[in-house]
């Protein structure tokens, strides 16, 4: 989609939040200061995330029950698509992602050079680099994706990513339910989308807990690997069930 440069693009930050009361308020206020529009998707939080957001007048969609990160983010894509946003950015509510990199992240989309732009920690290898084991896992997924699609993605698990309207529509129709990041990349590549990465810095999460913890990591590796391999079997014809 060649963007119309005469009109300022409508940009929405999608912030999936599950029990993020500690960070979400200050995050939303700082985004507002920077003039960024955000939608919080409250994924059935059991704490007062929704109240904290409502108090500062944030735009928030509350899901009646917990869907997991993929289902929450997909809600955001559906919203962004229905409300005519040109670009949707996935942005974590836990303080890992930094808003100052948003302009760099969306630059490839605005230039019409990419459909999905991923913020990568591993291009310049600066900032928070995650633990050794996680880095090993990420390298493994990076190789797997290159093997299947031929494209190098240095940070396939990065949840800091921006998409244009085409991919928004694609994600609104079909998005992996849990652990969606690597799988959605091969999904986009399979359907002919252009994926590019930009270097970003990330921070260590401020509060809350990562959804991927040690005892689940084996399950994570197996499930995401299988998801990627099965996606490769779909060919360009299978869009959704």
């Amino acid at each position, binding site marked *: 989609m060649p963007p119309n440069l005469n009109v300022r693009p409508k940009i929405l930050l999608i912030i999936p939040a599950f029990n993020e009361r500690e960070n979400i308020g200050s995050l939303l206020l700082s985004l507002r200061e920077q003039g960024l529009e955000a939608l919080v998707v409250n994924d059935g939080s059991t704490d007062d995330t929704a109240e904290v957001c409502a108090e500062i007048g944030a735009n928030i969609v509350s899901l009646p029950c917990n869907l997991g990160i993929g*289902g929450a983010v997909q*809600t955001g894509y559906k919203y962004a698509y229905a409300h005519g946003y040109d670009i949707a950015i996935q942005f974590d509510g836990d303080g890992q992602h930094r808003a100052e990199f948003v302009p760099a992240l969306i630059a490839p989309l605005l230039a019409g050079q990419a459909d999905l732009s991923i913020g990568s920690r591993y291009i310049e290898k600066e900032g928070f680099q995650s633990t050794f084991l996680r880095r090993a896992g990420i390298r493994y997924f990076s190789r797997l994706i290159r093997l299947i699609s031929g494209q190098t993605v240095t940070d396939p698990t990065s949840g800091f990513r921006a998409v244009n309207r085409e991919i928004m529509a694609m994600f609104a129709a079909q998005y992996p339910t849990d652990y969606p990041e690597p799988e959605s990349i091969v999904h986009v590549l399979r359907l002919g989308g252009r994926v590019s990465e930009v270097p970003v810095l990330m921070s260590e999460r401020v509060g809350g807990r990562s959804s991927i913890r040690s005892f689940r990591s084996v399950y994570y590796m197996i499930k995401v690997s299988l998801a990627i391999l099965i996606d490769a079997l779909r060919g360009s014809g299978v869009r959704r069930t």
Partner: protein
Amino acid sequence: MINLKLQLLLVAFSLVVLFVFVNRTRRYKLELKYALVWIFFGAAGVVVAVFPQIFFLIARVMGIQVPVNAVFLLAVSSIFLILYSLTVSLSNHSRKLRTLTQEVGLMNHKVEQLERRLEQAERERGGRPDAADR
């Protein structure tokens, strides 16, 4: 010849399955759609238990030496098929539930926005919000 005890056991078991699933469906506790596969295998169980020659035929065709093993093979395959049908419907339901959950969230959001806009409009009109409606 197949053991008479086993034969009676099979008939009894199949009849119980048939009865339970038909009865539960009759009372609207089960959806016929999901009970169907059980009822089908229950009925098939009664038929093959009454006419055990079927097992001998199956055993011969499949090269199974002990006919009773054909009974187990059929039983396991039936269960396998039932489980498959359950996995299919579970996947369908989880997809539908996800879509519904998302729609409910988005619609709630829309309703809240409309309410807010309505309140604001009424406040701007300066009247008592309720008076206009009644």
